[in-house]
């Protein structure tokens, strides 16, 4: 009735092959997921890195009388199709402020327009053949150069591609995140403390718990609907402002902070609490003086992760109007503002080729911030991790 090892092994060959195949398939799947990640980052880097450079053209600016009314007169006729409109536009103002300059001239590097920029970077452009020739000649003589793009990091949005920057969005993000944290951190931590340390185990507590888990899984766009209907239409919070955006995002971040704070509180061993009660502390004193300090690293880690999540959120902000065109950097909670993801969204909708690069550049900035935040959270968790 029983079989010898040889007989069994014979039959097993096929089954072992299947088993090995499963191993390779699963490994391949993980590899595929990793490959997606690599391709994604490679794509973003190749599209976005050029945005950190910008074409400049060296030329002689002659501050003639005519240039005071028409900036174009200050430049070589042949150059006009190549340089940025913003460079031309500033000349009359400059002259009006410094009338002494009229009649002088000086050699300067001026901002090239986006077509020159894209041409130099080898992308789609709209330069005519003659313009390309003129440009090539200047490249040969070293009068055209790609330089670090200070505009991108130093100014706000613009409809002129070479003049558009991400600074107003960064400031808007910071303002919005201040509001978000100021609301969600205290409320989230207080909720978690209540649920973990004080709440009686009754129906209401259970409902709150189920509700928090559900809140974490509600599509973000629905929070936008809430922001629009309640914050803007009902309470009259100014539309497009960091205040309304931050409030909306705070509600989304709340469950993340509550859940991570509860985990952190739960990981403080019961013996610490008993020790506190043993020396006559009240429940609140135990929580305040013993449990909270020990749970703090965990709470901070969770909050940073929640913050990073909120920072990348776009959909609810679009609904509350935070996709505004903000050319000036403004530090205000109630004026219209935009945030980084919304800026990326706006740029992604621009048809011009130069904006593709801006979009990807903005994405790189955003991803760098998010990854640093998450890495910081991970390092903090590692550093303060405590085994009881």
């Amino acid at each position, binding site marked *: 009735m*029983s079989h*010898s*090892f040889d007989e*069994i*092994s014979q*039959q*097993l060959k096929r089954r*072992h092959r299947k088993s090995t195949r499963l191993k390779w398939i699963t490994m391949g799947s993980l590899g595929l997921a990793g490959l997606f990640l690599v391709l994604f980052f490679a794509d973003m880097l190749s599209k976005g890195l050029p945005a950190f450079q910008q074409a400049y053209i060296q030329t002689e600016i002659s501050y003639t009388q005519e240039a005071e009314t028409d900036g174009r007169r200050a430049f070589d006729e042949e150059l006009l199709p190549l340089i940025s409109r913003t460079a031309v536009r500033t000349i009359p103002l400059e002259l009006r402020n410094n009338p002494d300059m009229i009649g002088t001239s000086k050699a300067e590097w001026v901002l090239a327009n986006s077509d020159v920029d894209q041409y130099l970077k080898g992308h789609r452009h709209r330069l005519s053949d003659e313009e390309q020739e003129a440009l090539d000649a200047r490249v040969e003589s070293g009068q055209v150069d790609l330089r670090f793009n200070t505009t991108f990091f130093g100014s706000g949005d613009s409809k002129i591609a070479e003049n558009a920057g991400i600074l107003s969005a960064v400031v808007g993000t910071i303002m919005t995140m201040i509001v978000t944290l100021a609301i969600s951190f205290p409320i989230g931590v207080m909720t978690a403390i209540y649920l973990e340390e004080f709440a009686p185990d009754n129906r209401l507590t259970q409902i709150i718990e189920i509700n928090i888990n559900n809140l974490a899984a509600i599509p973000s766009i629905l929070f936008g609907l809430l922001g629009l209907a309640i914050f803007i239409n009902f309470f009259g919070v100014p539309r497009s402002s960091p205040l309304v955006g931050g409030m909306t995002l705070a509600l989304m971040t709340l469950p993340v902070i509550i859940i991570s704070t509860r985990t952190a509180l739960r990981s403080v061993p019961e013996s610490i609490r008993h020790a506190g009660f043993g020396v006559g502390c009240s429940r609140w004193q135990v929580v305040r003086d013993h449990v909270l300090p020990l749970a703090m690293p965990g709470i901070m880690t969770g909050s940073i992760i929640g913050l990073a999540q909120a920072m990348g959120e776009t959909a609810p902000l679009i609904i509350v109007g935070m996709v505004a065109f903000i050319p000036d950097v403004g530090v205000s909670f109630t004026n219209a503002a935009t945030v980084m993801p919304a800026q990326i969204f706006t740029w992604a909708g621009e048809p011009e080729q130069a904006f593709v690069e801006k979009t990807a550049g903005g994405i790189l900035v955003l991803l760098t911030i998010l990854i640093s935040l998450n890495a910081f959270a991970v390092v903090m968790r590692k550093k303060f991790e405590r085994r009881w």
Partner: protein
Amino acid sequence: MNSHATVMNGQQTPAVGQPYTRNEAACHDLSFRVRDLNLWYGKNQALKNLNIDLFQKNVTALIGPSGCGKSTFLRCLNRMNDLIPSVRTEGLVEMDGLDVNAPKMDEVALRRRVGMVFQKPNPFPKSIFENIAYAPRMHDLVSRKAEQEELVEKALRDAGLWNEVKDKLHEPGTSLSGGQQQRLCIARAIAVQPDVILMDEPTSALDPISTATIEDLMDKLKEKFTIITVTHNMQQAARVADYTAFFHLGEIIEYNDTKVMFSTPAQKKTEDYISGRYG
């Protein structure tokens, strides 16, 4: 070691691996031959120079205080220790004249011939029928539905479970009581038609009535299978086993005919253990 020195109670030191006293009623065809078996968990040596011959169609009980290595030894016999990355073994474990640890030995084939029943019943999350029919089907022992049904019935009858479950073969195996689940696991092991069934404290998680049922079962099963069981319970060993091996701190202190061991042990340590002085 002086191979013919008198030990205790007039018994002689036997040849390497042999029991002190032979149980004349038992079968003595060799099932496993174990020589100089050593095993380490990382740096801790758990088994030290084990030598033992295990016989077919018997119940052999392995007893000893916790942590003495009896379960570890049991798991050497079907290479379940391979699943623990830190384990390292040396020495010979031979079945059918083949070293089970040899590189060309397929551990899956080995386990197919050396079945195992665990301390806690672990039925698969499938129906009772599937719990039993699954492995034989994979091993190509049966294929047609009728064959499967026949096999399932036979295995369940052998395990003494048929009458209790024949009307609910398609309910989940986890719906049974603990004792029934353990018999289901035994039926599952039998259905593969192995040569040896290893039992790792099969009754420790069960109530006394289920325990008695399973002990009866072991007695019946030894007609067809070699049964090697680990037990904490000395009475159980005394009741069911033909041979008993006493383990202490990773060594086999005494391997003997069960009746002799429990009445007139050959070693002082065995006597101390049996009379409850430690363990």
